[in-house]
């Protein structure tokens, strides 16, 4: 089961879950992902072992995709 989560004031919120075979669930997740991008979030695909990829489109076969806010020099 793939998961799309957003880091927010609650800790994190699960926006969508899907499987590669479930087109409807994936489309709903992709909509949530696009909405997040429009709100200024950045999509990050966690690849484990200290690696992550920034994504502009929701990968269908992802394990965990995290929406994060931008960072800035303090």
């Amino acid at each position, binding site marked *: 089961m793939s998961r799309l989560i957003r*880091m*927010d004031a609650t*800790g994190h919120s699960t926006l969508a879950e899907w499987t590669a075979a479930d087109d409807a669930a994936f489309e709903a997740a992709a909509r949530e992902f696009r909405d997040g991008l429009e709100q200024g979030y950045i999509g990050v695909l966690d690849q484990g072992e*200290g690696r992550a990829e920034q994504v502009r*489109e929701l990968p269908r076969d992802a394990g965990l995709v995290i929406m994060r*806010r931008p960072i*800035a*020099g*303090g």
Partner: protein
Amino acid sequence: MAAAVEESRAGLAELAQVPWRAPTDERFLRRYARIWLAWTFAYTVPFLGAGIVLMALEPLAFPVVLASLAHAWIIPELYAFRGASVLRVKGPRNAHAEPVAQGLLGDLLGHESRALQRATGVALERGSMGVWLVGEAGALLLPAGGRRVHCFCVRATDRTLPPADRIAHLLLALRTDERGFATVANHAFCGAPWRVRRRLPVPMRPGLDAARAVARAA
């Protein structure tokens, strides 16, 4: 998936906010370390020299000598304090959301780093530029050898996030593009790790010790 990966290779999205900055890479850090070392001598040696000369010329001027030596001690202390401050706890605690955020951060970290983060509040991350210690609003970088520490001020822009989520934000950005992360962050200090360690909150000091041990072994 290929398009997604291609996007990542373009670098951290936040680099668009700082187009004027040269990329912060290993060469940049070595140059910065030399500049900081020279700068430390530049503001320390004149005060030490003035104190010694004054004492030699007129021993009765010892109050002025003491003031001069105090400057030679205090100014480096203030710079090191500034460096250590990047890891200090900042902002609202959001205690109700912190356990949930800690769960996610724990999933992102390996077993060893997770235990260290729970104990010290900072996350250890190995990178190609060295060993990173990531806090809520900043990060330390110890290049291989562990003789120097670079202090970076960088934070998530959403202040309502619980502390562990702020660390997770920085960790994900760091994992996405290490040099981009260092470029977006503001470089606050570079010096010997012991100078920073003395000014870190006591619970965080084992985190720096662990990072230094990993950097020495690299």
